[in-house]
């Protein structure tokens, strides 16, 4: 079977499928569960300085099998409690990427510093949650902020830093370039798209918070476009996120320029067994396409010759 090893930012993962942040990532047992199910690595829930309960319910709305809207509101146990969960996951052998969110560069750096001590292999910066006041896109939409935050974190930790970018922007590549300037080892894209659902019978937004973030198959084209544009602009590696539920989806991202991918909503639609299936299916798909190593497919769609048969 084709070699699925994913190498980027100094990491070597057994396969390219990471558990995305915010899915199954609040507890160490769940992180371990996703790892045991076959994930190449697991990303923690985004952790903040203090415990946060998140928004009241309803926090999710689903659209058949093609989309999901959520406004969890970054619930998390806080950096004082969370190392315990990382420890549980690491004891199970999991390769863990720590995710943090903060309101400014110093908060990001402090959180990253704390999380770096837990044995995570990299730090992902959530610069992109579309529905948390004072966090996420509010600090991740301006290239200057992105650069400053990344730089502060890079100065603080020895681990590779991955800047997770928002699609709610006119120019995702400019944000990636800012992350690169700041010293990021990689960027990941995308977080959710700002979205809303209204219940016409109840005459109000469905989510208690009103605005939420759209995820799932619906956003795959948007994620692919971001990865495509970022790959054309920066030289640091890209991790693709958004709507991945099949091996084909992952390979689309890889051919658009991603060296690994994260899987979120599909875990809800299919269950955690999806990781094992994705690994098997991607192996089979690469074999059928005559691609020996996943790495050989990175960015392939950018090099498609025009005017000739493949």
């Amino acid at each position, binding site marked *: 079977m084709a070699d699925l090893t994913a190498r980027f930012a100094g990491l070597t993962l057994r396969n390219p499928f990471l558990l995305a942040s*915010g899915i199954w990532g609040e*507890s160490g047992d769940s992180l371990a569960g996703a790892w045991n199910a076959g994930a190449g690595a697991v990303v923690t829930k985004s952790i903040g300085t203090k415990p946060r309960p998140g928004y009241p319910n309803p*926090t999710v709305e689903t659209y058949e099998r093609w989309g999901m809207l959520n406004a969890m509101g970054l619930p998390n146990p806080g950096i004082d409690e969370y190392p315990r969960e990382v420890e549980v996951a690491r004891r199970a052998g999991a390769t863990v990427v720590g995710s943090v969110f903060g309101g400014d560069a110093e908060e990001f750096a402090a959180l990253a510093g704390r999380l770096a001590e837990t044995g995570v292999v990299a730090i992902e910066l959530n610069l992109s949650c579309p529905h948390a006041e004072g966090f996420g896109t509010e600090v991740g939409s301006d290239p200057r902020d992105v650069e400053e935050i990344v730089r502060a974190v890079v100065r603080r930790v020895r681990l590779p830093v991955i800047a997770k970018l928002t699609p709610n922007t006119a120019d995702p590549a400019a944000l990636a370039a800012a992350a690169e300037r700041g010293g990021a080892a990689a960027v990941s894209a995308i977080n959710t798209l700002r979205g809303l659902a209204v219940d016409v019978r*109840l005459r109000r937004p469905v989510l208690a918070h009103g605005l939420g973030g759209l995820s799932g198959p619906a956003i795959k084209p948007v994620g692919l476009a971001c990865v495509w544009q970022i790959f054309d602009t920066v030289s640091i590696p890209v991790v693709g996120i958004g709507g991945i539920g099949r091996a084909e989806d992952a390979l689309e991202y890889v051919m658009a320029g991603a060296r690994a991918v994260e899987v979120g909503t599909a875990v809800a639609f299919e269950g955690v067994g999806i990781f094992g299936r994705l690994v098997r299916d991607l192996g089979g798909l690469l074999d059928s396409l005559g691609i020996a190593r996943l790495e050989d497919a990175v960015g392939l769609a950018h090099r498609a010759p025009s005017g000739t048969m493949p």
Partner: protein
Amino acid sequence: MRTVVAVSERVGETPSTVTLRFPFDPPADPGQFVMVWVPGDDELPMSLSYTDGTSKGVTVKAMGDTSRRIQAIREGDALGIRGPYGKPFDLAPRRILVVGGGSGAAVLAPAAEKARALGASVTVALGATTRRELLFADRFRSMGATVAVATDDGTEGDRGFVTGVAARLVGETPFDAVWTCGPEIMMRKVLDAAAPRGVPVTCAVERHMKCALGMCDACALGPYHVCTDGPVFSGVALAGVPDFGRYHRDPSGRRVPF
């Protein structure tokens, strides 16, 4: 699938408990739950206390703000309902002991009803703070179950916890299964009482829930998600979970002792 329903019937079961019936088509099995959205307020997981046909129901005990507010709901009021979610009870056992505390009877009653209809014999150990708070005692009796009661204040049945009644019954009578729902510490005790007799226990567990889709991790319980792997668990599964009966997680995901 979320739908908006109008409450068709409101029944006061006990001073602190009401049943709300509403039209809801999707088929459901006893043990499954729905997310009940009280518009402008919150959305809470509630076991279906009536699972058959198109008129489903939930039975809600006044606890905090939202469940209190639910008490005030009138017939005709609108609720958002999504589900049903979760794993139901296995209805195969022939001799069943049902152990219910507090609002736990809400999920046990329809399960016992279905098991009775399939020919099982059902014994119920029912607990409450006081006589008037005994939930579904009549419903259990009218399905032909034997009902033993414990109240904290001794106004009906044994004075004290229902776990005492349950332990006695398990000792006296051979059962194929014990089903229990109630405070987690109670369920842990039921587990401990049944284990030496080798009677398999099934627990309906409650955890803070947000997505109900096995995604957000709010309901994590050891390696399980209560919303998708449960809420109905075998005692064997729970025996391997150190947190069961000891810790739950608050909405921020912090572990909090019971």
